[in-house]
């Protein structure tokens, strides 16, 4: 099978790989590049565990072919911490006990990050809507919603 070149920015660093045509971005990230933060849950677009941010928009890496991402700016949860300091969302998820098994967490955090980037002071309804494409089977969602609201408050206090 012919390999095709792909080149994109992942969490601020340039990546270039030869992949098999038809490879999903999820598989390219996990198996070729070694960023295992996006998770392969359903591979059907239902669970949201594979969510990543492509050019500022939340997308599902399991349904995105890697070769359609040439030149794109891709962000994953693995790129959020800076110099060993967790991102406010990651901190809030830990503090609010919003992660139990942790499988859905990277997708939840990506969905929450897109929300907070656009809506720094979201309402509870905004948070519920933003997370509506992500499934969690452990927490019952309430701690996750609280974590996002806490992170939003932490952000706005830092900005003030």
């Amino acid at each position, binding site marked *: *099978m012919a390999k095709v070149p792909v080149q994109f920015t992942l969490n601020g660093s340039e990546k270039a790989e030869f992949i098999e045509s*038809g490879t*999903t971005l999820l598989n390219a990230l996990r198996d070729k590049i070694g960023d295992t933060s996006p998770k392969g849950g359903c591979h059907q677009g239902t669970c949201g565990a594979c969510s990543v941010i492509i050019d500022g928009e*939340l*997308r599902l890496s399991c*349904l995105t072919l890697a070769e359609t991402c040439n030149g794109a700016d891709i962000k994953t949860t693995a790129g959020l911490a800076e110099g060993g300091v967790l991102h406010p969302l990651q901190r809030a998820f830990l503090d609010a006990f919003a992660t139990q098994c942790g499988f859905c967490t990277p997708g939840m955090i990506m969905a929450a990050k897109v929300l907070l980037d656009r809506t720094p002071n979201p309402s509870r309804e905004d948070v519920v809507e933003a997370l509506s*494409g*992500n499934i969690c089977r452990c927490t019952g969602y309430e701690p996750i919603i609280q974590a996002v609201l806490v992170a939003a408050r932490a952000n706005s206090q830092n900005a003030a």
Partner: protein
Amino acid sequence: MSLVLQTFSSAKDANAALQAPGTRYLGGGTLVVRATNEGDVSTSSLVRVTDPGLSQIAVAGGKVRLGASVTMAAIASHPELAALAPAGRAVGGPAIRNMATVGGNLFAPAPYGDFAVALLALDATVVTEGGETPIETFLAGRDTSRAIVTAVGFSLPTAESFRFLKVSRIKPKGVSVLSIAALLELAADGTVSSARIALGCMADRPIRATAAEKALLGCKLTPREIAPALAAAGEGIAPITDPIASAWYRAEVLPVHLGRLLSN
């Protein structure tokens, strides 16, 4: 079995490649990549078009033209398409809405394809290289259609005349139990002068509730006057059965939800 993706700059060039056996068109990937991920080995090749014109929304003179690659998120956030925003928002979660396209929705099998239900009520026209087709004809022949959809066109409804409802069991977002779109014109005395109602999940693709449409004519939108239309809503339906709901359940609740949509 692996996939090969072919990229073209225009729909015209891609149409030829799409004729090869085992080839499907890749829009947002929410149907096609989903199928290949699930193990659908009948698809060996995907074709996509990067023409930016396919992602354009044009609203002028009361007419709307949505490029086939326009996403549900783009529709939901477009200031001139506020009447359609509920139908755009009805599809998937935020990530799916950033990917799922107008063109793909026309091919989505029930229980998916909620936006196509809206397009059917709006009497949209489906545009391909070969010309324009009324959406009803297009939906009926979609299984054998091999031409790339480039756009859909329709008259922009007013917020008052267009109603859309999606019923799902999971809040705020879930797969459709059913969806209903209605384009209603009311006369000065409040009676219905024209009605076009489309239903999702009441067949393997969106269908019209023509008996209910006829029964609504001349009625005021009161519970008593719409009762005959609700009774007629089930004529000609063949609802799907899936893990969300049985055909029986869908048929039972259709008049209830149609009643709520009409009396709101």
